[in-house]
């Protein structure tokens, strides 16, 4: 996988910073170096408390990589640093947090265990509630640590609990286990585990011709229940909103296993919907050091402007909220977005309206399947 990624990096991508996928001893070695360096600097003739240099996870440090021959592009982080310093009031607390989480990870790695982010949060909440009042601080600090040690979150022994689900014409087989037929998993589908190692080892088989990425779990359930994949030979996948790394990883694995299958996205007609689509397609800045690896060339199937004007009744349109406009604004200013997407978004902002996928139920519950079929047959995706 590494090789594949690296081979596609052209000269312009030389500034790319990434998190390595490492074995536990390798990560431990990095932690040890960090600790020893800290002690050395502190014990030096002119002692100092060293700052922690992190790769900045801000949009100003993000770059876009574009394929030369394909329209595949993704977001990655460049070499700009920000510092966590004990000496600065506003970063002192996060400085301490990084060290505390680093210690935790070291102990986890020593025992070759894996914990979820949630588990880590509860553990830290017991030890030092002042520093970690909520999951937010834990997640943020883990990303700080990723940016400091430049190894992936999974390498640190931390996983996110799985959120994704997959259904449709896909046979999955864990090593030494029976194969699972995702078309018989019912409406909730096969849950995608947060354990990337396990996902990596899955054996996949399919006779589908399309992969359909669905924004919402409710729509996913509707499609699975209606067995849409029987009419359209397809695999359905959802992450229930913004995708977690595991779902992206899984989708990326499928796209490599079945490179000729188009991946089609079905999202709400609102800025957040497009943002979710873009997270699958380009990766994200927040997890920029590893997310770029799992960017997949998702095409925007719907809902789009034409669907709205032709299929959605006027009364189902809701006014855009300030939050929507904020997301739209940041999307429009992003370099990575292709022009056709920007046009769609601009029309949405101009109309001042948004619509849920469920608005299509106006034509009956079974309409959703027909809608998908029509769009796919017409190759009506961008």
């Amino acid at each position: 996988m590494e090789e594949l990624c690296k081979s596609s990096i052209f000269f312009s991508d030389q500034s790319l910073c990434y998190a390595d996928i490492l074995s536990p001893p390798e990560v431990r070695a990095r932690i040890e170096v960090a600790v020893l360096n800290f002690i050395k600097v502190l014990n030096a003739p002119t002692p100092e408390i060293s700052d922690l240099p992190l790769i900045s996870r801000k949009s100003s440090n993000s770059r876009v990589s574009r394929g030369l021959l394909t329209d595949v592009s993704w977001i990655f982080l460049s070499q700009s640093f920000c510092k966590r310093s004990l000496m600065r009031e506003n970063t002192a607390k996060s400085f301490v947090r990084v060290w505390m989480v680093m210690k935790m990870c070291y102990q986890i790695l020593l025992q070759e265990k894996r914990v979820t982010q949630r588990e880590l949060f509860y553990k830290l909440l017991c030890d030092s509630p002042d520093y970690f009042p909520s999951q937010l601080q834990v997640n943020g600090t883990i990303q700080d640590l990723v940016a400091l040690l430049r190894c992936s979150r999974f390498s640190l022994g931390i996983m996110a609990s799985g959120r994704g689900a997959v259904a449709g014409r896909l046979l999955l087989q864990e090593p030494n286990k029976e194969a699972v037929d995702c078309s018989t998993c019912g409406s909730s589908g096969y849950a995608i585990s947060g354990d990337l190692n396990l996902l990596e080892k899955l054996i996949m088989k399919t006779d589908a011709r399309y992969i359909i990425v669905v924004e919402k779990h409710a729509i996913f359930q509707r499609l699975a229940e209606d067995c849409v994949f029987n009419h359209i030979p397809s695999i359905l996948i959802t992450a229930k909103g913004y995708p977690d790394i595991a779902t992206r990883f899984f989708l990326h694995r499928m796209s490599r296993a079945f490179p000729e299958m188009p991946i089609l996205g079905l999202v709400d007609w609102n800025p957040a919907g497009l943002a979710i689509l873009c997270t699958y397609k380009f990766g994200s800045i927040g997890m920029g050091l590893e997310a770029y690896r799992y960017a997949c060339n998702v095409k925007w199937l719907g809902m789009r402007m034409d669907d709205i004007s032709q299929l959605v009744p006027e009364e189902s349109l809701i006014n855009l909220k300030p939050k929507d406009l904020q997301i739209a604004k940041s999307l429009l200013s992003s370099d990575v977005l292709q022009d056709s997407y920007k046009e769609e978004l601009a029309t949405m902002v101009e109309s001042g309206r948004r619509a849920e996928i469920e608005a299509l139920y106006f034509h009956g519950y079974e309409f959703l399947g027909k809608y998908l079929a029509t769009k796919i047959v017409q190759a009506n995706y961008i």
Partner: protein
Amino acid sequence: MEIGESSESPEGKKKSKSKTPRKPKDSVLKQKSPAEFFADNKNIAGFDNPGKCLYTTVRELVENALDSAESISKLPIVEITIEEIVRSKFNSMIGLAEHERVDEELYDDFESAKAREKRLAKEARIQEIQAKNANLGKKVKEPVASKAMKGRGETSYYRVTCKDNGKGMPHDDIPNMFGRVLSGTKYGLKQTRGKFGLGAKMALIWSKMSTGLPIEITSSMKGQNYTSFCRLDIDIHRNIPHIHVHEKQDKKERWHGAEIQIVIEGNWTTYRSKILHYMRQMAVITPYAEFLFRFLSDAPDKNVTVKFARRTDIMPPVPLETKYHPSAVDLLLIKRLIAETSKQNLLQLLQHEFVNISKSHAERLIGEMGPDFSHKMLVKSLTSQQIVRIHQLFRQAKFDDPSGDCLSPAGEYNLRLGIIKELHPDMVATYSGSAQVFEGHPFLVEAGVSVGGKDVKQGVNIFRFANRIPLLFEQGADVVTRTALKRINWNSYKINQAQDKIGVFVSIVSTKIPFKGTGKEYIGDDISEIAAAVKTSIQQCCTQLKSKILKRIQAREQQERKRNLSKYIPNVTGAIYDVLKEMSHLHASKRKRYTNEDAEVLNKVSNHIITRETLGEKLAQHVEQVDYEMALEYATQSGVNEEPRENIYIQTLEGESKFVDFQSPVFVFRLFQ
């Protein structure tokens, strides 16, 4: 003349109507004298209720006194005294015998048997509850003093005396200056303090309505060897003064100015705070004046004496009378100007009776008016149609904006001094805008923003001034209030709108303040020119404050940093030491090889040379070191950036004082006793 005629007719008709009393009266054409009009509509001039009447009377007298002193460029000294006169004293004053109540039930405050029962039952209940609470060991609240049956601050009578060191009044003009409504010296286009030019006259009408006692005026002008004394009241129906005494008296002291004494009905209890606020804000906007305010009553504990000392001797210039701007005149005004002008022809009229019309400009304007007009045509020969044409052209044509030269703002310096003097804020910033124009009248906005101070409430405290008088009523809809509360993002200036003690001072001066409402107590929010000017001024102040606040925050952080950082040290050492310990175990058990330096460190850990404590000490040491360096750096930096010092104003000593001199070869130290 007309008044006399019409007053006859209703008399005649009344008689005929009295025979058929049930039939509604036919509307009778009546004529009111201006004094009557204001007596009927006294709320227009701020005489709504006894309490407000007392307030407005004080206000009118103070403002007259300031105007008078400023008109001769004298630093004002204003003494205002309110003396409470209880009913019995008042009665004896007017020679009314004290009446005992005979029929108690006739009075409003009579307590009927039923009400008494109710009250007693309630008191008993309260006592019971208190006893219970006391038993339970709860904190016993002081029993709320049951309010006197009379209700909140019964209206009483007050003698208001105001003495100034102003110009004084010419002996012969005094009766007309007080006894005739709508005759005044302040008419004309200039920035004035008054509202309608009613001033003391309205107070006189009120005294006439409430007490019937006359006003007493003592006045002396510079160079006069006598003092004028006049006691008069007003004939409301005829709008003429009714003079009791008007005489010249021997001058006892060297003094010029006026002293006015008036007895009115009022309510000190309810308007006490308003009157004190007014005095305080007046002192803010006129720091060059000295105010002595006294309230005297029979109960010594209620007495109030406040002295607002002078803080500067720099006085804003006297506002100049200006000519009208062509875009600010209406038809009637043009006609009046034509009637009053001394100029002969149209060209001169345009050129001299208006601002911003030069000779060549006037010629072009006349050309534009049409063939009926010529330069030399006589002003008096203009027909009504022609005047309408002139008016229309004034409306349509473009003129330069009037300059703000005729305005007399308080001045940034004075505003600042006033704020510092009265509020003692932690920080203050002031800003003075340039003159702008609304409907042909120039206006100028000055603003001050203060943070902190004594007697200031948390949140935004707004102080409004129009033509250098404080506005205290109808604050909600005012342009300043709206702007300060809605359109200023205090957060972006590091000011906490809810927690900080913020003072917002905005002074607007203009030849015509566009007041809203009958009370002339606020300026509407719908005038975008003024709203924008107010907003910019406040923002300018805030920007100045921001840098100061940032510096202060920096200083505070500097102080708190050390404590904060030390708090973090145990957690950092804990995390790092735990990793080190694991490593040293690995090293000791030879499961992993470390080399050179690293091995040395790990050996030290194993041998307890590096421990949790030593690590913590080392960190603390370094934090201290860095702190010291930063403190040093900060001190040198802030030493350089110290604010410019402000001049202090030392009051001059009046009269002869006894003093002792301490001589030294280089100086003399004089101690005044």
